[in-house]
């Protein structure tokens, strides 16, 4: 497989002594699967259901992020609407601040949100709108937090957007009353309640006797986030997006954090035990043991049965952050599958080193990949399953390969023990589907067609 020459150091195979060079911008001209700062901020803050999310920029930024993330809310659904200042040529010349102020005035009294987030975009950044000043004015006028998000797309990749979103959250945290928060309390950071996953995790924590103060941001609520500084521990699930917030809360409020993953039996159990051990409470530990025992026992037979078919099948994955990649490699191994390729959009060097240890020798590890490379690897390694997001799905299908969305468009919760069973069923359903044999390349390979 020929690589863009600048990219040659971004791809290695496990067992190779070379380190993956990563954390660098995509080469201009590549068909990168990555997005921008705005995208990063938008996906992180979007699930807060009782906040107003106003995109200050041209219509596209608002239109493409209108309800694309299956982040479920148990109540208010204000976040699922698309609010936009629809910047036009006039504002490009004369500035968009007045329009932004008017937009907030037209929105806040009507919808009475608990807080408003105003997302800056490339355009409003480059024309120099003082979004912060307008937000300050609106906050004073309406008496709710109106928080600017510095998410101009050109600032960098999604990673920068995550930081900007975390910075916005820090403006809410610490402004609420923490009375009544017990000693066994946590915040969940970096779960976005895709397909209801945070409800699964919250359910486990409740059974352990641990109180969840705020979830950031899946099924998130402004008032909960305002009192998040009262929690005694932060559980960081999506490390890439939320570690910076956890660090900030540690510095400012002395709240320790643990980085965990709830994907896969091993990691999920490890996550819950880590929380239990942190509190050093015998009763919590006992309840956690019981929970893990019970949940695992329910899931293992399902997996054992599915594994019979999946043993020896080959998978490839391309995901946003590295933590998800770690979990997926382990989860796939539990299903008897081999990983031929693992890539991430935003992994760091240490992450790739860890991936190397996790993966079998020969596994391709790629930072910031593109469809040309991926399609070649998928065919070369005769992969049976590809795990990725919206842009990866049709590539897999064109090649006649099973696919599992582990991104915004997943419809079935994959977190937790029940999520592992769901994952196993989904993987099994797609890998074992007879439809791939209808595709000429796979039909030839299986000998079904000359």
């Amino acid at each position: 497989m020929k690589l863009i020459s600048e990219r040659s150091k971004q791809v290695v195979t496990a067992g190779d002594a070379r380190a993956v060079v990563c954390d660098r911008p995509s080469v201009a001209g590549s068909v990168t699967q990555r997005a921008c700062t705005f995208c990063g901020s938008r996906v992180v803050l979007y699930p807060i259901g009782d906040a107003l999310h106003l995109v200050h920029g041209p219509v596209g930024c608002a239109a493409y992020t209108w309800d694309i993330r299956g982040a479920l809310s148990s109540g208010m659904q204000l976040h699922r609407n698309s609010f936009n200042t629809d910047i036009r040529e006039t504002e490009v010349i004369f500035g968009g601040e007045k329009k932004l102020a008017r937009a907030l005035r037209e929105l806040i009294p009507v919808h009475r949100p608990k807080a408003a987030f105003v997302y800056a975009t490339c355009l409003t950044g480059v024309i120099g709108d003082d979004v912060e000043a307008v937000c300050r004015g609106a906050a004073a006028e309406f008496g709710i937090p109106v928080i600017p998000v510095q998410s101009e797309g050109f600032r960098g990749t999604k990673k920068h957007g995550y930081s900007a979103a975390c910075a916005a959250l820090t403006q809410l945290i610490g402004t609420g009353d923490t009375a009544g928060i017990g000693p066994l309390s946590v915040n969940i950071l970096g779960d976005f309640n895709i397909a209801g996953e945070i409800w699964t995790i919250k359910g486990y924590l409740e059974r352990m006797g641990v109180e969840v103060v705020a979830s950031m941001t899946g099924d998130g609520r402004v008032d909960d986030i305002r009192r998040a500084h009262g929690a005694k521990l932060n559980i960081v699930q999506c490390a890439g997006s939320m570690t910076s917030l956890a660090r900030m809360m540690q510095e400012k409020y002395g709240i320790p954090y643990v980085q965990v993953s709830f994907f896969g039996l091993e990691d999920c159990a490890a996550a819950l035990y880590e929380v239990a051990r942190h509190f050093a409470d015998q009763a919590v530990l006992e309840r956690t043991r019981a929970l893990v025992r019970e949940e695992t026992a329910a899931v293992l037979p399902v997996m054992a049965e599915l594994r019979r078919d999946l043993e020896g099948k080959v998978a490839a994955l391309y995901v946003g952050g590295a933590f998800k990649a770690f979990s997926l490699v382990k989860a796939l191994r539990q299903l008897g599958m081999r990983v031929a390729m693992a890539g991430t959009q935003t992994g760091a060097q240490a992450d790739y080193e860890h991936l190397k240890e996790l993966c079998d020798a020969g596994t391709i590890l790629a930072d910031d990949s593109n469809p040309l490379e991926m399609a070649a690897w998928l065919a070369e390694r005769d992969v049976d399953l590809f795990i990725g997001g919206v842009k990866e799905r049709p590539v897999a299908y064109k090649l006649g390969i099973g696919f599992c969305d582990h991104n915004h468009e997943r419809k079935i919760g994959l977190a937790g023990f029940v999520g592992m069973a769901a994952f196993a069923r989904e993987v099994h359903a797609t890998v074992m589907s007879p439809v791939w044999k209808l595709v000429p390349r796979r039909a030839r390979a299986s000998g079904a067609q000359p």
Partner: protein
Amino acid sequence: MLEMTPATSTERTALKINPAKTCQPVGAMYAALGVHGCLPHSHGSQGCCAYHRSHLTRHFKEPIMASTSSFTEGSSVFGGMANLQQAVSTIFEMYDPEIIAVHTTCLSETIGDDIPTIIGKCQNEGKIPEGKVIVHANTPSYVGFHVTGFSNMVKGFVKYLAASTGRRSEAVNLIPGWVEPSDMAELKRYTAAFNLPTIMLPDTSSVLDAPATGEHSFYPKGGTTVAQIRAMGDARHTLALGAWASSDAAELLTKQCEVPHEVLDLPIGLAATDRFISALAKLTGTAVPQGIEDERGRLVDVINDMHQYLGGKKVAIWGDPDQVIALTEFCRDMDMKPVHVLTGGNGQAFEERIKAILADSVPGANVKQQGDLFLMHQWIKKEPVDLMIGTTYGKFISRAEDIPLVRFGWPILDRVGHSYFPSVGYTGGLRLATQLISAIQERQDRDAPDHAFELVM
């Protein structure tokens, strides 16, 4: 989720809620995908390209290939020249397209990157391999809407490539407008039925409806070739379908290559298809082939057979101006009442045209350009309709108000079929009519009390 929509409209001067449009670059990307061996290139931040690719993928369920200049904070200050130069090298080295179609974004427009100069520089520095070309279009997101970007990109191809050699050919140029790959294939079927040599630009058929072979083809076999676009300058006539999407390129062909042009409505529905077919008959000087007459007859037959289901039904329509104009006329001709008609796109001509179409049948219709779906919802709350026709985004209103929705236009994110079965022409009209009839009949069945529940309809 839409419980927050109040029935009474308040004045909104600075705000769009639930847009019925998106920005120019995605239209430019769609148009460029209809050129064979073309890699669309987004000159801006990475997110634009990622969003456009994702959105097109959601609509077509196909891989969408496009590259980006990957702007950084530095490029936003110093300009994106270095990025585009690097991009050109990378693209030809890695992806080996016949042609790169650069479109700009709000960012590169605002900082003032001069694309022709940069392309010239690439040329001088030998970055463009022999026989390969780069074209561009200016597509600032803060002007117009997604159809403007489509129009600008098609115009860009014409501007860079179409040339007159002085010898007129027998060919006719056809600019199909923003329609589905299936529609483009159908339009070619019609011109073939008239034995009319045709160059269609763009042509996304066999690109965005590519068959599954088990191989990933970076450049699928369809698309207008560069040679064909060059030859457009020698054509004897241009038919442009849809004023918003196609008239600019047709006008440029007249100006640049003296190819006469006419602008027709998108041939959606009976009357608009009649006008398209008679234009083909006039151009070829032949009678309409019997097969096409028969297709027309079938459409009329179904409209007549089922008129009691559609007659008098109130309908709300939104989408892109060219589509909505044709649909409104079609609905009117089937005796439906389009009471709410809206586009997110801009152009006063839209309101004038719709009002003219509805002058006799629905004189009090709500008509709006630069509207949004929040407004559409408010209209529907005040005056409910029997049926909604529009994009997937209408499903929230459909659910909130319990009104059936027939999906039409761009984007359709939650159903398949639109890219495989045409809506243009008589057969396309038949498909549309059956969709509308089925939606009404399904609803009638669902709501009928036991005693009125009918086996035969």
